[in-house]
């Protein structure tokens, strides 16, 4: 073991620049993979968050509604009954709550009263400026299209909002970010695999005399391969540690320092648990990235 460790030391000092470039490539690729995992967790988390809460909001006509469904002014009782009946009959609808114009006015007062401009806006508004609304909970939050299109066309319905639809672009951005980071990570992982292979080949060439003698005197394949395997594993562990440190820094500065503070009301953000899982996954990936090409290449170049 002493001899193997001394060979490892010699090999590392001889391959300093190769090892450093390998560590840098692996670190960046692992970091991108872990960011991809984190974004994936965020997408799941956001979907779950809004999936639980997202409802379709049906606002009936007020006296000022611009919709063509509102030519007759404020929604009549018949129109209200028709909308309620449509909601009751729709198989996608789980339940719905009614919010009166007064309820809506009180909520607006609470929200707008927080700022001066909001207070100024309130002066021109009264309860009759607000519609009667139905907050519809769907059986499947993803299937909002049917309900929205059905209700949008009904007389007395001012507008139908689906927060899911509004937040669609945000989901698209998150998904694209996830695929972009995984795509780049994939390319870098490929680069890392090639670099591991290259390092092995160069080290095997630099040590061809020792390896030749080891073979001749009857050293086992495993004994010949061990310094190479240890070298790759060491590079992988250093890379995984650096990538983990960078991810912890990202969590601390971006997620906890910014997103949770400033955009905390938008959604719930990923936490240390998800970061820990991403770090565990990438550490495992780092070990595989180092071990598989090393074993393949050492078999090719160092087999007895």
């Amino acid at each position: 073991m002493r001899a193997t460790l001394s060979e490892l030391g010699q090999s590392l000092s001889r391959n300093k620049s190769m090892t450093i470039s390998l560590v840098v490539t692996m670190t960046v690729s692992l970091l991108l993979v872990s960011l991809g995992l984190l974004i994936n967790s965020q997408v799941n988390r956001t979907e779950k968050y809004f999936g639980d809460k997202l409802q379709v909001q049906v606002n009936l006509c007020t006296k000022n509604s611009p919709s063509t469904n509102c030519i007759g002014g404020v929604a009549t009782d018949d129109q209200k009954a028709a909308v309620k009946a449509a909601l009751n009959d729709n198989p996608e609808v789980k339940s719905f709550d009614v919010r009166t114009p007064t309820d809506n006015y009180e909520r607006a007062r609470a929200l707008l009263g927080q700022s001066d401009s909001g207070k100024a806006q309130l002066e021109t508004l009264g309860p009759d400026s607000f519609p009667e609304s139905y907050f519809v909970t769907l059986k499947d939050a993803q299937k909002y299209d049917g309900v929205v299109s059905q209700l949008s066309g009904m007389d007395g319905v001012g507008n139908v909002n689906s927060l899911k639809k509004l937040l669609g672009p945000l989901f698209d951005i998150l998904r694209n970010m996830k695929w972009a980071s995984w795509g780049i990570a994939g390319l870098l992982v490929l680069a890392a695999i090639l670099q591991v292979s290259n390092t092995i080949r160069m080290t095997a060439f630099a040590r061809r005399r020792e390896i030749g003698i080891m073979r001749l005197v009857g050293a086992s394949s495993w004994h010949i391969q061990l310094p190479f395997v240890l070298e790759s594993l060491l590079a992988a562990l250093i890379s995984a540690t650096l990538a983990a440190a960078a991810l912890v820094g990202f969590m601390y500065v971006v997620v906890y320092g910014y997103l949770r503070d400033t955009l905390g009301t938008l959604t719930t953000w990923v936490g240390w648990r998800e970061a820990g899982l991403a770090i565990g996954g990438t550490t495992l990936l780092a070990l595989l990235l180092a071990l598989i090409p090393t074993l393949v290449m050492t078999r090719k170049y160092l087999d007895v």
Partner: protein
Amino acid sequence: MIRFDKVTKTYPGQKRPALDALDLEIEKGEFVFLVGASGSGKSTFLRLILRETTPTTGRVYVAGKEINKLSSWKVPKLRRQVGTVFQDFRLLPNKTVSENVAFALQVIGKSRSEIAKVVPETLEMVGLEGKGHRMPDELSGGEQQRVAVARAFVNRPMILIADEPTGNLDPGTSVGIMKLLDRINRTDTTVVMATHDSSIVDQMRKRVIELEGGLIVRDEARGIYGYQN
């Protein structure tokens, strides 16, 4: 100790076999010279004994093992029974004489105490006592070859293969190396030596096997380098 049973070896892309239906037996403790022109099949013969290659047809037995049937993980064990010396010494330039010899034991997992005991004994046997701390480039060619012999013999193999061990040495130094190989042979170690050095073969009067075009054209018990009239 070594047996070739109708061994033919044809390398990929070659029409003519390097060895052609070779039948041969070398007993334990024999000293055999392998002679023949370049390309006659000497190197292939030695590579087969070391199981660096396998025969295309036929069987090769080394130290009781049929090398064709030997799985690759058992090859190192076979090679521990076969020491090898080359014309170009193949010493590690960054290791001392002792470290070069010890290397052969370290890589097969021998204990430090055993290495500390055996290495000086072997250096003394090859006539390098007191030179263990020297670097290879501080030694003469003959001394470097002695280090290579020490490394090949330190694990006390049953067979010693020497591929042109005197090819880079002057005649006087070559005699010293041959005396050393003869001494090793007298410990009941089988020695197979490929050589072009006629004077050595003629002086030693050991068994001579001559190869030509992959065939044995001569096998004499106490032969000389050239044909005897």
